[in-house]
């Protein structure tokens, strides 16, 4: 079998694996019930920060509390707070009779509002079903200190009046975008393959510096180009998920995002450097050194979300050391996706190296012909 046919077979297998990944992601992997944020410890990393949930009240009950002399009559309101952003889905589901589905963008929060009495704060308008409310509260994770239930989170309100929101992890899902979470099955393998590409660049750059064989330089360059491709795909697919989950495409204060962007810039620099140097030996030597030094950005990007909350990152950690885990189906799907992407990477690398070698040979031939003339 000639080279072209081998590549065609490898490519067909790679694309078939990719298609199977799509199938598994869409139809086999379940929608997550638990919030990504709860699972990955984001709430812990954001502990002490204020969040605001704006929505409308439902199932409102109000009761008078024992009054205190010379203070406004205290009242306790208990209600479910539905997030505005979820209203469309909520109303659609209500019409379809599917209100029991546990995957709202923001699950209803049980809110207790104490007003009047000693706590101060007046509620001038009555709270009724449909009343618009905005709850600003601090995130508090007592489980993290008590070592009892790390998934237990509270929202503790500040300011006048007293608003307390307390839920266990099963009900406390601040922003859950379960459908968009399936982006993860393509996003994470893309990122993984880009790291793999840069690792190959590191290894072959070192091998080039040791042996000065042009083949190693070609492999290092080809792997870096593929690494940049997959890093670009990860950087493009991630923000689409972030928009659904966080409400914004990008957060410049997130270490994972910023370090990955730096990594991408560094390797774009690698490609630009190669394009700028025309003399082959100098180009190979300089880019090999750059390829080795540039690799320092890979562990920076890879580990940045693992050392949160020391460094602030809301990026999910896929294989967590504690708390949160993937369901077996999701685990199998992501495992399969990683294999499919790795296979595709190897196939593309083989082809890229072959083309790059031909290009190098042609350039050399052109130079020698030019030299003779």
């Amino acid at each position, binding site marked *: 079998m000639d080279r072209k046919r081998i590549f065609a077979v490898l490519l067909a297998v790679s694309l078939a694996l*990719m298609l199977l990944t799509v199938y598994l992601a869409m139809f086999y992997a379940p929608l997550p019930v638990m919030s990504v944020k709860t699972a990955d410890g984001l709430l812990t990393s954001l502990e002490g920060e204020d969040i605001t949930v704006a929505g409308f009240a439902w199932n409102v009950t109000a009761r008078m509390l024992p009054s205190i002399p010379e203070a406004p009559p205290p009242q306790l309101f208990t209600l479910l707070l539905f997030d505005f952003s979820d209203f469309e889905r909520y109303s659609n589901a209500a019409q379809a009779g599917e209100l029991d589905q546990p995957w709202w963008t923001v699950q209803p929060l049980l809110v207790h509002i104490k007003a009047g009495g000693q706590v101060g704060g007046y509620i001038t308008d009555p709270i009724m079903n449909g009343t618009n409310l905005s709850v600003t509260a601090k995130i508090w994770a007592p489980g993290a200190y008590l070592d009892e239930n790390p998934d237990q989170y509270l929202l503790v309100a500040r300011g006048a009046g007293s608003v307390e929101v307390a839920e266990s992890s099963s009900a406390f899902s601040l922003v859950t975008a379960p459908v*968009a979470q399936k982006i993860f099955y*393509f996003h994470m393998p893309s990122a993984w393959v880009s790291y793999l590409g840069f690792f190959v660049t590191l290894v072959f750059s070192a091998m080039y510096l040791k042996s000065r064989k042009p083949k190693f330089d070609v492999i290092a360059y080809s792997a870096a180009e593929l690494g940049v491709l997959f890093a*670009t795909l990860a950087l*493009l697919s991630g923000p*689409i998920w972030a928009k659904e989950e966080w409400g914004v495409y990008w957060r410049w204060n997130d270490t994972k995002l910023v370090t990955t962007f730096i990594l991408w810039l560094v390797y774009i620099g690698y490609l630009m450097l190669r394009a700028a140097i025309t003399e082959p030996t100098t180009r190979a030597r300089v880019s090999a050194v750059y390829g080795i030094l540039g690799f320092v950005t890979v562990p920076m990007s890879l580990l940045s979300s693992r050392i949160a909350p020391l460094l602030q990152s809301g990026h999910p950690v896929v294989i967590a050391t504690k708390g949160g885990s993937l369901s077996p189906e999701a685990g199998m799907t992501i495992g399969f996706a990683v294999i499919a992407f790795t296979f*595709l990477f190897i196939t593309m690398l083989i082809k890229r190296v072959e083309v790059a070698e*031909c290009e190098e040979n*042609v350039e050399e031939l052109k130079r020698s*012909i030019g030299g003779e003339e």
Partner: protein
Amino acid sequence: MANPWTALYLAYSIVWLGVFVYLIYIHMRQRVVERDIRTLKEELHKHAK
């Protein structure tokens, strides 16, 4: 996005599109190299004559 499935399809499309665009790019580079080799061969042939 109004529909979460739109976001999912958009992200998947970006990844697939990226892969295919790169494959086409490699294919085009290969064709350029093959054309260069043909030209060089012809030149060498002429040179030999």
